[in-house]
């Protein structure tokens, strides 16, 4: 057959089109994740959900949270002991643990890692800075690490999993100008985790490759068909991620699927939605330092004007649990007797009248800032706006970004009237919620952006922080929470049900609120 130019073009086109049958088909042993990757790869510079999704796999910590509700379990450590006064802590390490480069993981690496976190002074440091001096982390022998705290700190153990243990020699070898290897570790890896980062596969924020670490200390005997390779391919639009899940090109989405996508995925044969109650609260903040929110009656009027059930049932399709206080319901330290506020426009009107009697100008327009990237914050604001309108309060919606809002929360004057955000689990302790949100010592951080100040609450939280035993701390947090709720500092809406789209190729999904189930070593992959 004579191949004319036109025929040739047609033939090329045909091969291009014919090849695809494989397009959606999965590669054996390979799992494709579309949830985001951390801004950079250094677990001591960043501590957020995407970082956990990376670092829980590539690094190990002394302890690790497992299961739901989360339980703190020994990981690199075999156990710990603390002194009666809560100042001295000693951790024993597992013997025979190796890093990805084959060198042994010893107490010196643990000491270096904690000192590095403190020296870099980035997000993961905030839990330790006030109580730990770098020189007070020591390694008396290769399998023992000691901490001496400046003062007793209740959440210390809860915060231990935050610190990933890095290969000290490897990082030190790549230090440049006293940067503690920050530039190098931002796009490299020096861990011991169940998966290792594949060099050369990184495009920041876009893609990253990991492969199973055969020599992981936990061993693989409990998993007959682990994931061999992991391709992280960030999907910017959730809809793209969901489509990818449905056509088999993605195996794993982030765990914040819009609720309207759940049914579609559940009805498909190739994928399912993993639904798990988490520890992640949804809060509408009020700037207590500024009129009209400096008036208790006005705040109560606002709290009664939000349609909690409508929001959860209609907009979230029921995929959330009403959470009437600042602490997530499943956590300890929650006062069981505190009822919170219900949606009742009648009560709202009454409190509004009372506020007016107090001299509050209830007509003045108030502004609520939403996060442009997070549609749910917009939906909540819109719902709130229409209810407030019916009781004569003028709410204006301001579209904003996380970076802007967080900057503005530096002072009470610049903080928004109201804004909406989630509080995720950074460490599983009441300190992560009521402690950092309502103790006035944290004013100026975004978490304390309601500028709530109550000396009694400050005292309760301070005492709880200084105790080590949960049994002693719990009643203090319960009381503090009760007071904050009575003062109606914010509008607490729900505790998240995390929704993650997962391919049916994967089984053995283990959810834990810390990390949101992104620890991949438990997963089994078929095909």
């Amino acid at each position, binding site marked *: 057959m004579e191949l004319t130019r036109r025929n040739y073009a047609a033939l090329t086109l045909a091969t291009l089109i014919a090849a695809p049958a494989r397009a959606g088909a999965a590669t054996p042993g390979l799992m494709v994740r579309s949830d985001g990757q951390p801004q950079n790869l250094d677990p001591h510079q960043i501590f957020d959900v995407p970082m956990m999704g990376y670092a829980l796999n590539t690094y190990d910590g002394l302890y690790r949270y497992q299961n739901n509700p989360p339980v703190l379990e020994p990981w690199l450590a075999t156990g710990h002991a603390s002194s009666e006064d809560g100042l001295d802590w000693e951790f024993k390490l597992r013997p025979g643990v190796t890093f990805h480069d084959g060198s042994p993981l010893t107490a010196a690496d643990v000491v270096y890692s904690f000192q590095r976190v403190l020296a870099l002074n980035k997000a993961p440091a*905030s839990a330790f800075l006030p109580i730990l001096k770098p020189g007070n982390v020591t390694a008396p022998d290769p399998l023992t690490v000691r901490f001496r705290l400046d003062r007793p700190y209740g959440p210390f153990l809860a915060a231990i999993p935050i610190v990933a243990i890095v290969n000290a020699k490897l990082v030190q070898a790549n230090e440049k100008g006293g940067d503690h290897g920050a*530039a190098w570790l931002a796009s490299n890896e020096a861990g011991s985790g169940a998966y290792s980062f594949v060099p050369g596969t990184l495009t920041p924020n876009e*893609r990253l490759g990991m492969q199973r670490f055969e020599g992981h200390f936990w061993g693989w005997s409990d998993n007959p068909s682990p994931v061999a390779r992991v391709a992280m391919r960030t999907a910017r639009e959730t809809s793209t991620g969901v489509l990818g899940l449905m056509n088999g*090109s993605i195996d794993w989405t982030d765990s914040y699927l819009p609720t309207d996508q759940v049914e579609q995925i559940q009805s498909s044969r190739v994928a399912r939605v993993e639904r798990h109650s988490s520890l992640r609260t949804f809060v509408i903040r009020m700037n207590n330092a500024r009129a009209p929110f400096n008036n208790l009656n006005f705040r109560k009027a606002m709290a009664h004007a939000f349609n909690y059930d409508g929001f959860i049932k209609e907009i979230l399709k029921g995929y959330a649990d009403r959470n009437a206080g600042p602490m997530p319901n499943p956590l300890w330290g929650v006062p069981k007797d505190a009822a919170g506020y219900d949606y009742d426009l009648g009560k709202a009107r009454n409190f509004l009248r009372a506020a007016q009697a107090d001299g509050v100008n209830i007509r003045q327009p108030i502004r609520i800032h939403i996060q442009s990237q997070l549609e749910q914050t917009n939906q909540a604001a819109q719902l709130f706006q229409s209810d407030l309108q019916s009781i004569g309060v003028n709410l204006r919606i301001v579209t904003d970004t*996380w*970076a802007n809002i967080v900057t503005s929360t530096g002072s009470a004057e610049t903080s928004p009237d109201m804004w909406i955000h989630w509080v995720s689990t950074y460490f599983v302790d009441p300190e992560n919620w009521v402690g950092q949100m309502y103790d006035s010592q944290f004013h100026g951080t975004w*978490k304390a952006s309601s500028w709530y100040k109550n000396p009694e609450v400050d005292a309760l939280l301070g005492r709880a922080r200084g105790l080590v035993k949960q049994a002693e701390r719990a009643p203090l947090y319960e009381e503090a929470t009760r007071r904050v709720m009575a003062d109606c500092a914010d509008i607490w809406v729900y505790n998240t049900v995390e929704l993650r789209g997962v391919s049916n190729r994967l089984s053995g999904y283990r959810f834990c609120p810390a990390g949101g189930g992104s620890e991949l070593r438990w997963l089994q992959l078929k095909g």
Partner: protein
Amino acid sequence: MAGFVLRRVLLVLPSLLGLLIVCFLLIRMVPADPAVALAGDNATPAQIEAIRRSYGLDQPIHVQFLRYLEGVARLDFGQSQFSSRPVAEDIAQRLPATLELTMAALLISVGLGVPLGVLAAVNHNRWPDFVLRVVSVAGVAIAAFWLAIMLQMLFAMQLGWLPLRGQLSAGLTPPPGPTGFLLLDSLLVGRFDLFADALRHLVLPAVTLSLGGLATITRFTRAGVLDTLQKDFVFYERASGYAPRRLVWIYVLRNSVAATVTQIGLLFGGLIAGAVVVESIYDWPGIGSYTVQAILTADSKVMLAVTLLVGLIYAVVNILTDVAHALIDPRLRDRA
């Protein structure tokens, strides 16, 4: 000609400087404090202050600017505050992807738009002209993200012919090529499987991105050809018995593309802007999605560098446009 180009290149520098100053001021006007964003969740005010100092964000703005300029002069564009990598490195890694995408889109826009425009003009006020006029209005009106989703639904989901997203299938490793251009590198290392895979990933984003330009190019080419067809020399050429196809596609077309070439130049800027949307939808790892990320996280070094880059591309395309004009029309050459 060389002198002409040199003069233009020299003129670019002050414009870029002006662009930088404006951009620097604008970024400083946005309330977002990079130090706050940088400190991350749970940071204390003291931590934030320390970061502000270490990044020189506590200095007066003109000092910051001069410092930045000094860096730029050494081709050091600073570090991305988030990826903690040199901005230049990030951009170098991502630019080829964007260029590959925009070039492909441009190729479609021009390769299809010019012939369609000629077709419409030659059939002035007959049905091909009417059809193309409707289509080109639609092409301008249709939103890129809407088109993208339609294309994804049809070709990736229903028919399964083309990949949904990304630049390369997840199971494949990009070629270790020297240029960073996926298509080029896979050819250079002789990996035709990678080439085919990359090409298939390119189709939908490029088509989406090309649509607006396609409409513009069609319209301008049509207008240009219609105008030329009225010219005396076209009558003379017909009267001299030129072959009809050569008459239209060579002699008429070359006289008609001046406006089209200008449009192509303008379009290039538009394509880069359009890439922001298209790259986000198709998860294309280019400059567009990088910029979005930078804006959301107030990563000022990245914003500045991207502005500079786009400005530079604009300037280069502008010069190229002028050169192209001169190549097409000898009268301009003699004037220059």
